[in-house]
């Protein structure tokens, strides 16, 4: 399958961040030049591939590269994970979506990230840090190895708290358990940015609403074109239908209908399972790259 890949966008760096998550720097000079924190890309691995939206984790206009981080959950992400440095992917388009606006007047900003939401949160906090804001973060995952991008985050945050399901790093529990402690004890925090699984963002927003702290989220729904053409990515915000690709991906977390967002993620569950099973049958389940 790798041989079918068109020679278009080269993978210049690949890192395995944990058993399920990989990082790649993709050569895409136009995207790297225009990218801003908060935006995403859509990539297609090969001719028969689907269009996969991924939040930009970092970018380097000088080198002309864009960093993506992805979790191998279905056929497409597993296939992407088999590619190596020097390989090419067929299509890589972006930057899409709106850029994050700086929260004017905020004093201390708290980022809350989970799983592959952490690298998606990173460029936002990095920008705020560079803008001179006080920035702290709460990062969580299943266990220590699932809490990725720690070094990068620690470099742009004044303080980083951790939470893991099994207690191997930081507090044993969810990010919301740490969030509660922080909000109780640190009255300076006046703005929250959260990126991660929908259920996590829902719980974070529920809590920050109780404390009346403005909170933004970055949504990652199903998409096709990513330019407003199809509406596959629609969600409800404050009772109104929005297209994440055009109106987002960043929204006021206190207005997002997270339950609908979760339901819509299930639209192709059956087909995704078929696709993955077929792929694993063909590849013996052990066809992994470095």
């Amino acid at each position, binding site marked *: 399958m790798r041989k079918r890949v068109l020679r278009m966008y080269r993978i210049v760096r690949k890192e395995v961040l944990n058993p399920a998550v990989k990082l790649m720097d993709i050569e895409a000079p136009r995207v790297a030049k225009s990218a801003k924190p908060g935006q995403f890309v859509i990539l297609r691995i090969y001719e028969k591939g689907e269009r996969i939206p991924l939040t930009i984790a970092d970018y380097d206009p000088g080198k002309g590269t864009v960093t993506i981080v992805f979790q191998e959950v279905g056929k497409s992400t597993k296939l992407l994970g088999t590619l190596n440095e020097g390989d090419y992917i067929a299509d890589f388009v972006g930057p899409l979506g709106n850029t994050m606006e700086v929260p004017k007047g905020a004093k201390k900003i708290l980022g809350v990230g989970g799983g592959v939401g952490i690298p998606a949160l990173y460029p936002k906090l990095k920008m705020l840090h560079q803008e001179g804001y006080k920035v702290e973060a709460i990062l969580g995952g299943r266990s220590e190895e699932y809490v990725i991008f720690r070094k990068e985050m620690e470099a742009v945050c004044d303080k980083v708290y951790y939470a893991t399901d099994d207690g191997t790093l930081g507090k044993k529990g969810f990010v919301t358990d740490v969030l509660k402690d922080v909000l109780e004890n640190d009255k300076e925090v006046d703005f929250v940015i959260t990126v991660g699984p929908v259920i996590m963002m829902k719980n974070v927003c529920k809590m920050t609403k109780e404390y009346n702290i403005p909170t933004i989220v970055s949504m990652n729904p199903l998409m096709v074109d990513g*330019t407003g053409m199809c*509406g596959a990515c629609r969600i409800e915000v404050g009772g109104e*239908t929005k297209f994440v690709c055009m109106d987002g991906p960043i929204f006021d977390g206190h207005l997002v209908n997270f339950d609908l967002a979760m339901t819509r993620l299930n639209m192709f569950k059956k087909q995704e399972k078929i696709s993955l099973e077929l792929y694993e049958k063909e590849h013996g389940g052990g066809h992994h790259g470095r």
Partner: protein
Amino acid sequence: MAVKDRVPMREQDPKVRIKNFDEVALGYTEEEAILEASRCLQCPNPTCVAGCPVHVRIPEFIKAITERKFEEAYKIITSTNSLPAVCGRVCPQEEQCEKNCILNRIGKPIAIGRLERFVADYALQNNIEEEVKPEKKNKKVAIIGSGPAGLTCAGDLLKMGYDVTIFEALHALGGVLTYGIPEFRLPKRIVEAEIERLKKLGAKVETNVVVGKTVTIDELMEEEGFEAVFIGTGAGLPRFMGIPGENLNRVYSANEFLTRINLMKAYKFPEYDTPIAVGKRVAVIGGGNVAMDAARSALRLEGVEEVIVVYRRSKEEMPARAEEIEHAIEEGIKFEFLANPIRINGTEDGWVKSMDVIRMKLGEPDSSGRRRPIEIPGSEFTMEVDTVIMALGTSPNRLIPSTTKDIQVQKWGGIITDEDGRTSRPGVFAGGDAVTGAATVILAMGAGKKAAKAIDEYLRNKK
């Protein structure tokens, strides 16, 4: 000369074709084409040409067919039309050239579209190329969007010798010809072949560039040396009704449904990775060509038992081409006329279960000249459907006007231009659905053609 009946075009049997995505209409043979062409009266003042937005020299190419000079016929057509294999298939000829045919007075008009298709297909099969060797002009023009408007504008500018680069947001070229119109009406190999011809003429192509995001028009003109820009970005934003339940699972815009099938080839899932999810009973809302395309595509998908088109007016007011409606009926698509959805009902876990609809009646004509549909109070009823496709029309994307200096737009998003496609900003031109709102392939091509002429004039006068 006695007017014989129009030569019919062979088609796939409806019972067979609803199981595949292959082309429905099979085209004329050489003998059929010559027979049909011989019906043309060769009017000295041909009214058909006036009905064609790109002014194809119709009697001339038809005469060449009668003389079996198919290559010559092709050269006559392509001297004004860059996409004949496309036009021969999807133009509404009955409202344009064929409508003006003198034979209408005594019988059926000459089948201009079918003959155009025959000639174009003949040329593609026999690798006949246009002989164009224009003098190179060292001036760069950017074409934004590779749909019918952009491709036509690019084709004409290439023939004038300009250095043309086409920017496309998607990974494949063709715009609506690729993502919108289904394979069974316009095979993608035809679209690809027409685009290949443009590349041979020297067109440069950059896919995966969303102008307004990846790069702006200002950057293209100020940093990358483009002296003129044509915006042919179409009308891609889908409309929804704003009724309850529209965000349930298995409610699609026609754009999403058709893009998954046509561009992403979801009808070949799991060979192709992009899925499509449909139930057994599909409702398609709307009465235009896109509604027909969505309905007929849905019918061809595995597991679908029934497809019902729900339209708020009656059959007479349907904006879809008569041929498309006929094909849909032949294939077994059902119609629920004078009905309008008011609510989509869902299961507990968020999937479409049924749709509540209200009966309509027709009142006085509205601004479109069609009779306005009015709700009949108390006439609500429920349709048991599990998939709903909204084909209610589309509007232009505001991305480019909002990221480009000095481009004026209408309230509804259409770019404002003069008759020849000049926008409010010198050097920037626009045409097609991006200017007019959703219309037809051929009108977009006509606009692309006019703009190419205006761009040439602009660049020749610019120092």
